[in-house]
């Protein structure tokens, strides 16, 4: 069996959008080793996204109703068929299904068209919070009833098992480092944690996948995720202020994003969209 296309797109969009963000540091990192580490993280994520989009594209091309649903995406097709690039480069903001936290810029809360210096603490805190989720998700997805997805999960799990300690080691260094690094790390965690609440409010695609055994019931991962997060935050001498969660829960995974994704996609898709029939 195959996982629902929208579930694959959710996983793929998460990986692509975070990979796009992390690659922004390339050439601008605080230490050369970190330029390399983030480039590596980004490469892994884009690799995961490609496998997931390819898997989704195969299903779309093989199913008349799905093909119809995606018929408006005309770019980067090969012999009329949708490719990984059609899905990455020709969907609009509202069609992306990544969690909002993936698309946030590397700084504190600001509106979409504000500019600000990048803050490595935000980058590290996000990579930590997301990797802590994904080690759990990919581990479970190894036993997905969708064998192809299970294979992608096994590969991705190996990768995220590098990402998580990288991010958590740095978060500990920041939290338990200097006064400035502690302040930045705490601010980053305070900024990002509320966006993580969305992890536990699965959308229709995640629920469908959990039901048919191709996906994971994400709500069962909340406790182990909390344990991972609490352990590292405690080692980092950082405090959690997000419980209980009050107010808005981010909805990127059901297509209602922050103001930031539009700008990210405008840049990412600009060249591909200017040449929709080109092969690269």
């Amino acid at each position, binding site marked *: 069996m195959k996982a629902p296309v929208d579930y694959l797109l959710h996983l793929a969009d998460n990986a692509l959008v975070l990979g796009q963000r992390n690659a922004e540091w390339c050439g601008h*990192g605080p230490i050369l080793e970190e330029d390399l580490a983030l480039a*590596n993280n*980004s490469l892994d994520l884009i690799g995961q996204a490609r496998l997931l989009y390819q898997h989704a594209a195969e299903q779309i091309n093989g199913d008349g109703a799905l093909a119809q649903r995606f018929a408006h995406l005309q770019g980067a097709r090969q012999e009329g068929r949708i490719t990984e690039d059609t899905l990455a480069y020709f969907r609009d903001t509202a069609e992306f299904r990544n969690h909002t936290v993936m698309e946030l810029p590397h700084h504190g809360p600001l509106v979409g068209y504000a500019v600000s210096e990048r803050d490595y603490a935000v980058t590290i805190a996000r990579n930590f919070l997301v990797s802590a989720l994904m080690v759990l998700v990919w581990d479970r997805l190894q036993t997905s009833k969708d064998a192809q997805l299970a294979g992608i999960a096994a590969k991705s799990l190996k990768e995220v098992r590098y990402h998580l300690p990288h991010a958590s080691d740095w978060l500990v260094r920041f939290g338990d480092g*200097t006064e400035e690094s502690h302040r930045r790390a705490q601010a980053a965690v305070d900024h990002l944690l509320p966006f993580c609440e969305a992890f536990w409010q699965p959308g229709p695609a995640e629920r469908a996948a959990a039901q048919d055994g191709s996906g994971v019931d994400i709500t069962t991962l909340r406790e182990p995720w909390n344990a991972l997060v609490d352990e590292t935050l405690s080692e980092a001498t950082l405090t959690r202020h997000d419980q209980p969660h009050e107010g808005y829960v981010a909805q990127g995974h059901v297509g209602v994003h922050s103001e930031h994704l539009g700008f990210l996609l405008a840049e990412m898709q600009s*060249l591909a969209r200017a040449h929709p029939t*080109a092969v690269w």
Partner: protein
Amino acid sequence: AALQAHFDAVIDADGKVEPRDWMPEAYRKTLVRQISQHAHSEIVGMLPEGNWISRAPSLKRKAILIAKVQDEGGHGLYLYSAAETLGTSRDQMLDALHTGKAKYSSIFNYPTLNWADVGVIGWLVDGAAIMNQIPLCRCSYGPYARAMIRVCKEESFHQRQGYEALLVMMQGTAEQKAMVQDAVNRYWWKCLAMFGPPDADSPNSVQGMRWGIKRISNDDLRQKFIDATVPQAEVLGVTLPDPDLKWNEERGHYDYGAIDWDEFWATVNGNGPMNKERLATRVKAHEQGAWVREAALAHAAKQQQRQQKEAA
């Protein structure tokens, strides 16, 4: 004097000088300058290509580009390490870069203006760099020679990738072809200048040759590059922007037009299109990363203290 004699003997026998060996101060200085300049070029060289990562037009090309820029950073790392074996720290070298005392390859002072620039940098810039660097794989200083073997291997891979990307574009739309031609037009002459001034005007070369740090002259390398590249350009279907470029049966080489050395020297001396931008970007990254490095040090110190307490 015995040390000098031993050193000379190693050099004459085409042997390798190693970090533990005695070496003349001028040899050490020349190497530090050259290796750190090379390392800086790798690091600054991440910027022109890094400029296109966010806009790469397909996921495959995005992944290839990130991996390539990452390799450049990796080259920077081994080269800084090789230079460190000569007793200069990475911080000292970075400081020299950031204060403008150390140079980096002038080719990176030009902007990347369209996606084909990425392919052209792979094909021509990396191609020229490899020509310059292959002889260094046999250079007399062991750590540098070994670093260069790895660098050259990866650079050759990048060069083929760059050329392949251009081949695909040249089979594409009119706009794609125009991008490739535009990029070639902007980079061709700059690449020829990468081999340095004509031999007649190149004073450092003699000592470098003697020491086995430089093994082939600027003009010879340049000619070799042109001879190798012209047929590749034909296969690709682009025009090299030099009306004087033609096969000289007699010499067995391509003749080529006059390089604009004024433009070259203006750029080397800081007045190129992007010297300020490249350097300021590196300085900014370093300055804004200071708190990160300080945090790592502070945390390591705390850890150590805690371990000592536990041990006590």
